[in-house]
């Protein structure tokens, strides 16, 4: 203890000329007179009992609205992508080949089909009627005759 007192005395001797401010410049004389008046104190800062000020209510309303809007946009984009997926009529070359079985087509088959079409084009309306046995039938009768389902049932 004695040693510490001596040490402090030594320091005091060295720091003899040091002021209480330690050389830091003092603020203006009016600073401490006005300090209390300039403190940003309000009743709301005094009490923490007020959990939601009017400003925080607006903030929360705005944030809820923003979240709702984001959810709506996300929902719309998900729905849109599903719809566009289901109405996507594009078909790949492989799917087209599979549907039409082009690999198994040969030249003769294609030509014979074309010939059939030509023959069909050259058939007259009367011949067509005769082929289909629809001559003299009413539209309803024709419809019934060619219908795959029994409409009367």
């Amino acid at each position, binding site marked *: 203890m004695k040693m*510490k007192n001596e*040490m*402090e005395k*030594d*320091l005091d001797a*060295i*720091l003899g*000329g*040091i*002021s*209480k*401010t*330690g*050389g*830091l*410049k003092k*603020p203006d004389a009016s600073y*401490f007179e006005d*300090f*209390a008046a*300039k*403190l*940003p*104190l309000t009743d709301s*800062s*005094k*009490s*923490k009992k007020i959990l939601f000020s009017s400003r925080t209510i607006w903030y929360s309303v705005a944030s809820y609205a923003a979240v709702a809007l984001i959810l709506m946009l996300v929902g719309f984009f998900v729905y849109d992508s599903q719809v566009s997926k289901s109405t996507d009529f594009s078909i790949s070359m492989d799917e087209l080949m599979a549907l039409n079985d082009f690999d198994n087509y040969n030249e003769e088959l294609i030509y014979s089909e074309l010939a059939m079409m030509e023959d069909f084009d050259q058939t007259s309306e009367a011949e067509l009627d005769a082929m289909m046995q629809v001559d003299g039938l009413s539209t309803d009768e024709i419809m019934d005759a060619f219908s795959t389902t029994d409409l009367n049932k």
Partner: protein
Amino acid sequence: MSRIYSDKEIIALILGADTSDFGFRILVKNYQERIYWHIRRMVFEHDDANDIAQNTFVKVWQNIHSFRSDSNLYTWIYRIATNETLDFIRKKKRYVFSPDGDYKDLLLKNLEDDNIFDGNEIEKKFQKALLTLPEKQRIVFNMKYFDEMKYEEISEILNTSVGALKASYHHAVKKIKINLTDD
């Protein structure tokens, strides 16, 4: 002729419905200068010290209703001020990206600024010696040397044992002496 109020009287005034503002103004008047210099010695710049002192008293105002009357008002306010100051220094250290160096270099530069420092050469040398200490040791030294606080009071404020404070102060004095007598 203004009356001197004790801490208990000040708290009673603040807690009173009609005397709250009056009581708080007395509290500020009683402590503003000591708190300001406690902070200023750590941050050097007046504007920074003013901001921290304001924050300190705003926090006192906000929490005075939950203050335990068996505690010492004086040490409580000092504790808030110390925490605010150390918090400020921590933030400053994080955001000072000066090419010339860190926050301590900034404080050293402040000693060359006439708006901040107007002391003599011994005081400048002393401040430079203080800046070689870690923040907490600097605070302990300031409280003991400038504010002439007892170790028990410092212990309550810094939440550190009296033994550790004595050792810290001893080291601080030793380092300062070496720095001052170096050349």
